[in-house]
């Protein structure tokens, strides 16, 4: 069952050849079998999943089901749930059960999806390797001594190891796309505002965006359909009508203009990764697309701008974790400052602390203009680059990451080396654009990701291109041997 895509499972559920109960039991057994090695789940709610599956099966029988009813998924542990803890991979929220559920969780539940459990992640979504989880690193199912990417590393590993049909993730600087690339699956970061952020624990509010991780573009389209839409509880959520993402999946690629930025094939790109991406581009070309060299002149400034803006927003967003109303509280606080300082000192891990500190510094008196304001101006320049580029091309293509998944521990002592994982992904967050990563080959047995981005609200186009590509290739059908 787990070798099927979500769309295939949905067809069998609809025809009655498969029940949600069967699917859930199957995945629960697989979790039991594989997750001790992978550590991709932080919580599994077998009872809750069984009840939801039974409910979904009734809906299916009554003919009241939607396309996702009965499909088992995992939620990144950044989405608030009321029946399981929401830890954000942090000691700070070790036992925190949210009194309310995230809009995304509610929407997917309303669509009939069954939640198996919560996915491991880098603490507060800060990281590119999942090594920053308080609850331990996640193994990459392709080679278990390697990282799955981050911060949605648990979600990506779960989908890659077929421990759920799909998973939710969030992407602030590449946190859906980079782990999708490292794990050989498909993941899309929608346009900023497409998916409600309500109930998604904030890392950097102007960059955060939720999205699906699944095996295929078709599956991503189905799930994004259920996740997207305006939410009155999120002032930044888009009021635009959500298009039917599945409807346009098969559109012809003839005449599609694909921009290839020179900058994506220069700085620090692993040559094997480059070869896979070039190979993928020729597949798209043979399908009728026109490849065009373009330039994104401010590409080299994305990482520096991002590493001011994201920590600055984070330093403020994470101030609410003060040990007063929820979360970790130190023993025997002497006074209010002691309560704050020790609770936060004990509750946050090293990477979170680094980012809070750098963020607070960048916003502090005398430094705001030199750092924060400057980064915002550069953000505008980066965004302008895309505006110019999309006047000439329909999508922009390149590698998702400079390298394939690295070994656990390889970069944990060098935060800046770690940040360079996001070299090609952060620009979409800075500009609010949609971007997708899809598997496009292997280098030394590790998956390589192809990234495509488009101008705002063009998710349907990205899903269409990847769907056609996946019709011509089978990289997305590959499964790690260890979990086959």
């Amino acid at each position: 069952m787990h070798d099927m895509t979500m769309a295939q499972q949905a067809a069998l559920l609809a025809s009655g050849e498969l029940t949600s109960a069967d699917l859930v039991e199957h995945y629960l057994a697989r979790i039991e079998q594989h997750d001790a090695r992978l550590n991709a789940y932080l919580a599994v709610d077998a009872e809750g999943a069984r009840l939801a599956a039974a409910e979904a099966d009734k809906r299916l029988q009554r003919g009241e089901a939607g396309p996702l009813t009965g499909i088992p998924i995992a939620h990144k542990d950044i989405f608030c749930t009321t029946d399981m803890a929401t830890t954000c991979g942090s000691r700070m929220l070790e036992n925190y059960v949210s009194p309310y559920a995230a809009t995304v969780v509610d929407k997917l539940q309303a669509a009939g999806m069954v939640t198996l459990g919560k996915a491991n992640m880098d603490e507060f979504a800060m990281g590119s390797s999942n090594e920053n989880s308080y609850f331990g690193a996640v193994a990459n199912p392709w080679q278990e001594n390697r990282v799955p990417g981050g911060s949605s590393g648990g979600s990506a590993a779960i989908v890659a190891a077929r421990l759920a049909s799909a998973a939710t993730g969030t992407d602030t600087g590449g946190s859906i796309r980079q782990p999708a690339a490292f794990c050989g699956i498909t993941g899309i970061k929608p346009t900023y505002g497409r998916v409600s952020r309500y109930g998604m624990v904030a890392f950097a509010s102007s960059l955060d965006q939720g999205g699906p991780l699944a095996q295929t573009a078709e599956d991503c389209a189905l799930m994004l359909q259920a996740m997207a839409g305006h939410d009155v509880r999120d002032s930044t959520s888009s009021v635009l009508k959500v298009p039917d993402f599945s409807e346009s999946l098969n559109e012809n690629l003839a005449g599609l203009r694909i921009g290839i930025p020179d900058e994506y094939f220069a700085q620090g790109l692993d040559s094997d990764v480059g070869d896979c991406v070039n190979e993928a581009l020729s597949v798209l070309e043979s399908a009728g697309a026109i490849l065009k060299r373009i330039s994104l002149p401010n590409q080299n400034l994305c990482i520096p701008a991002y590493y001011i803006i994201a920590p600055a927003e984070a330093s403020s967003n994470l101030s609410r974790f003060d040990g007063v109303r929820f979360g970790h509280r130190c023993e025997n606080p002497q006074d209010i400052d002691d309560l704050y300082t020790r609770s936060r000192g004990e509750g946050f891990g090293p990477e979170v602390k680094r980012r809070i500190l750098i963020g607070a510094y960048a916003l502090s008196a005398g430094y705001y203009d030199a750092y924060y304001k400057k980064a915002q101006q550069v953000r505008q320049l980066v965004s302008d680059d895309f505006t110019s580029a999309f006047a000439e091309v329909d999508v922009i293509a390149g590698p998702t990451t400079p390298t394939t998944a690295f070994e656990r521990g390889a970069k944990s002592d060098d935060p800046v080396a770690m940040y360079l994982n996001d070299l090609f992904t952060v620009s979409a967050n800075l500009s609010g654009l949609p971007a997708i990563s899809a598997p496009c080959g292997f280098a030394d047995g590790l998956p390589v990701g192809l990234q495509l981005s488009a101008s705002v609200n063009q998710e349907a186009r990205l899903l269409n291109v990847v769907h056609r590509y996946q019709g011509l290739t089978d990289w997305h059908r590959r499964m790690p041997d260890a979990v086959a």
Partner: protein
Amino acid sequence: MLLTPDDIKQIAHLARLGIEEAALDHLAADLSTMLDLVEQLQAVDTEGVEPMAHPANASLLMRDDIVTESDQRDVLQAPAPALQDGYFLVPRVIE
């Protein structure tokens, strides 16, 4: 090094973040490397460029002035570490 351990102490206080004395040197080095990384922004000519605070070009959406929240104190206070008589408790704050 752009930041000294003393700088780190000061910022940590601003952020009410407990840092062990022994970790200060290492943090100062890490943060200085991070600042090195972002230092290249200073060379960029941004004269006249409007700072971009937000990717959404849309203007702010507003809600009607209607009370829809009812008392949910018991549920909302369930995660609280210290409570009494409906109040959150903290060590005595001297004014």
